[in-house]
């Protein structure tokens, strides 16, 4: 596995950001389940989204640094990545269940919460995307697709975008 970007996984920054997001999203879930005041839920939405966006920023910076050869972190092993995937799945499940609770209690129709609700769904999808990316990197079922595409390109069989976009 040649995925330099994953060197960020399991570092102190990763743990702080991930568990911070898990903590605040669990508090949001509890606030919704306890039918807390709308203002309290709106504040938790805001905190959760801010925490998740900070986490994504850190990951994107780590990926960019790794691709530019500026990563300061050491190599990461398979077990660390698997743990990272499971942590991301835990986070996704909490966010997804918050989304379902909001729909069940019709909180998605309240204008005060709508922005936070929409942001949370986008962030949940992004967490899922990260987990899938890490799973793909561990289970490279994509190698054949790349080999076929490369062979097609070398034989001049690829299709220009102008023909596909019509």
């Amino acid at each position, binding site marked *: 596995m*040649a*995925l*330099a*970007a994953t060197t960020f996984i399991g570092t102190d920054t990763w743990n702080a950001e991930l568990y911070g997001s898990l903590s605040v999203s669990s508090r949001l879930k509890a606030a919704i389940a306890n039918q807390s005041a709308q203002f309290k839920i709106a504040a938790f939405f805001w905190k959760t989204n801010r925490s998740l966006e900070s986490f994504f920023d850190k*990951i*994107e910076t780590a*990926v*960019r640094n790794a*691709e*530019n050869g500026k990563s300061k972190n050491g190599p990461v092993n398979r077990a660390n990545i*698997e743990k990272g*995937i*499971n942590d991301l*799945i835990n986070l*996704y499940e909490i966010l997804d269940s918050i989304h379902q609770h909001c729909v069940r209690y019709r909180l998605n129709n309240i204008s005060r919460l709508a922005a936070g609700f929409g942001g949370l769904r986008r962030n949940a999808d992004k967490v*899922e*995307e990260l*987990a*899938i*990316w890490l*799973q*793909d*990197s*561990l289970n*490279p079922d*994509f190698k054949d*697709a*790349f080999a*076929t*595409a*490369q062979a*097609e*390109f070398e034989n001049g*069989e*690829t*299709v*220009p*975008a102008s*023909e*596909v*976009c019509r």
Partner: protein
Amino acid sequence: MPLEIRYSKQSASYLKNLDAPTKRRVHEKVANVAADYLDPKNSYPLEGSEKRSARVGKYRILLLIFKDKNVLIVAEIASRGQIYRET
């Protein structure tokens, strides 16, 4: 300078069967990657920087980049499965 975009046979034929809004979103995503393929907001590296993965809704797009030839190949478009726990 943006990379020239080309499609493999599989991705071209898959794309033709998608509905128009999804097709447009895929084109936009690929164009964004072609403009700056190292930007992790658009795609993530799978193997080195040349083999990358991007996502549009439930579709996974595999991208192969030939930096020296200034070409980006859309290697595969596929509906991806659910995430699952590593044991």
